[in-house]
């Protein structure tokens, strides 16, 4: 087992490793690997220039924490509100990677049709909420979906889940949303990826409590912490939280400690992160940690890994080359309407 530095954190032990747990671990690892390879591709497309206009925001180092939540959710049943660093969680939730690529390249065929880009994507009617940039503002939206289901009597044991970073917890929206969800006792998982920086801003300029999980008590909700570089512990933490939420335990806060192993966006070299932090325990690469964990237990062989890697790369390359041939949006074919009621759309006020 990997040592977990934090007190009161959920820690996976050998007796947790049932066959079912192992299967979920391996499935999640595949999602993480696909996410990593896809994001590397997006990064190289960005650096090559031309194809991606605008930023590229990667979740490198956060795949375990992100995917461990996504994999607990059931698409078509649960509501997921992912954020910036949740490529892995989105894959685990069931978003096809072609949606990612189409959104980054602005293809008309994608879910956002070139209107919005990169991480700002989703299919709300499939329970995948499309984040706006304004941090913290998705929590109440996910809560609203659950609230409506309860009113309609369709909630059953479905849940919602949403993510945020350490920085995003400083928003009024986050506080209002979580307080409301707590008052309404909604079954919502609030996953906080504490990667210790918000862009360049360290935690010391973001909040003054010892650990963000200390806030859970203030909201009157369950809170747990986990070493977010350790997939096994992440899975255990989210399994516990999801079971609690499905059983009517109200909002569940999970705080994961880790480090973002990329810039804020690909334009950023993150030189503000000191070497000390880069060499600390939170800087472990979760993908490597998971791989070692699986190998040590004989769950993965070198040959199996090689095969998996090849398959994942092929998948990513094929997807990117397919999307590259798809049409870019045509402003003359674009339907310039922001209202669904076409009869209420005004003229464009153009001279």
């Amino acid at each position, binding site marked *: 087992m990997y040592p977990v530095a934090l007190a009161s954190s959920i820690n996976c032990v050998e007796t947790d490793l049932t066959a079912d747990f192992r299967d979920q671990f391996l499935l999640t690892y595949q999602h993480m690997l696909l996410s990593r390879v896809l994001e590397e591709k997006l990064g190289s497309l960005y650096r090559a220039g031309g194809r*991606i*206009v*605008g*930023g590229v925001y990667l979740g490198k180092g956060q795949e375990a924490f992100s995917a461990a939540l996504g994999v607990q959710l059931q698409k078509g049943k649960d509501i997921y509100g992912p954020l910036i660093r949740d490529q892995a969680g989105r894959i685990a939730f069931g978003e096809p990677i072609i949606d990612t690529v189409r959104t980054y390249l*602005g293809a008309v065929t994608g879910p*956002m049709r*070139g*209107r*919005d*880009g*990169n991480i*700002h994507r989703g299919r709300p009617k499939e329970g995948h909420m499309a984040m*706006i*940039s*304004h*941090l*913290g503002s998705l929590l109440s939206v996910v809560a609203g979906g659950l609230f409506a289901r309860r009113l309609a009597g369709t909630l059953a044991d479905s849940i919602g889940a949403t993510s945020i970073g350490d*920085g*995003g917890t*400083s*928003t*009024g*929206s986050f506080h209002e949303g979580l307080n409301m969800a707590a008052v309404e006792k909604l079954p919502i998982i609030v996953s906080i990826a504490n990667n210790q920086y*918000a*862009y*360049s*801003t360290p935690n010391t*300029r*973001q*909040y003054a409590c010892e650990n963000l999980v200390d806030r859970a008590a203030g909201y009157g909700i369950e809170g747990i912490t986990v070493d977010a570089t350790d997939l096994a512990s992440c899975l255990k933490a989210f399994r516990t939280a999801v079971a609690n939420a499905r059983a009517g335990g109200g909002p569940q806060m999970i705080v994961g400690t880790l480090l973002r192993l990329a810039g804020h966006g690909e334009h950023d070299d993150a030189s*503000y992160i000191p070497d000390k932090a880069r060499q600390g325990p939170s800087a472990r690469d979760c993908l490597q940690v998971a791989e070692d964990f699986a190998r040590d237990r004989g769950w993965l062989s070198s040959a199996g890994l090689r095969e998996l890697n090849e398959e994942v790369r092929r998948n990513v390359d094929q997807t990117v080359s397919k999307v590259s041939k798809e049409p*870019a*949006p*045509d*402003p*003359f074919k*674009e339907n*310039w*309407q*922001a209202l669904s009621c076409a009869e209420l*759309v*005004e003229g*464009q*006020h*153009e*001279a």
Partner: protein
Amino acid sequence: MSITYLEAIREAQYEALRNDPSVFLYGQDIATFGGAFKATKNLSKEFPNRVFDAPISEDAMVGMAVGAAIEGARPIIEMQFADFSSIGFNQIVNQAATLYWRTNVPCPITIRLPSGGTAGSGPFHSQSMEAIYAHYPGLVIVTPATVEDAYWMLLDSVTLDDPVIFCEHKFLYYHLKADQIGDRELPIGKARIARPGRHATIVTYSAMVHEALRAAEELQLDGYQIEVVDLRSVKPMDTDTILASVARTGRLLALGEAFPWGGVTAEIIARVTTDGFHLLDAPPMRLNSKDTPIPYHPNLWKAHRPTTSTIAAALRRLLRN
């Protein structure tokens, strides 16, 4: 030696900090990192304890600026993007904007909004919010189009005893350069004739001034002389300069990058038709973005906002009328 629009903003903040110990800067990532756009580069080194990284709490950032101003400070707040100022909206329009009127205590704060569109930035990193804030009594709304104005109007904003919304255009940050910063020419509230002409007037502000100037060049080839008025501040709006220009040309195109409903261009037309109807030889025209959120893909983005060619086309129609 040359200086960009962005560097001018940095230099103005340097000067403001140097001139007045009651000035401080508060905003996300603005200290050691120097800001998302580097508008505060090295300022925290040069002015320790006067440049602070803020938590991601726009509402609180504005509220604290108001409180500090009451105590005699002159805070400059940087929003990382204009779009995020919507989170501080309540504090801006209800707290800051009403303070003087309600209590007779002035509110000298400056809120910098990196505004406007750049390709690939999408609906939440591209907005122009000047009209929203201009609607509320008690705020000054500044929209510089030149390097000089970016510099002098920011310095003026900080010394002004009222809350200023300083809309700096991201598209101009790196592209727009001047050899040097000249002398202060006009105060906030006065418009500038950016190009003299006699066949039609374009009234505009911020980055659209440059599109308008390019369109005017294009029309010059057809033998038309287009006057371009740069408003510099949209509130107060220099109605006299606008009317004097329309008196010379008889034709008006009001141009802005913001959404079409209401807004600065509507205000320009309203003023000219109420106070200068007799000056017009043709119905006034206005050109704005389309009435949808700002799209991500460059193809859509370019078609969403006015460009040199759509402005030139509008001018041709205006001149035919």
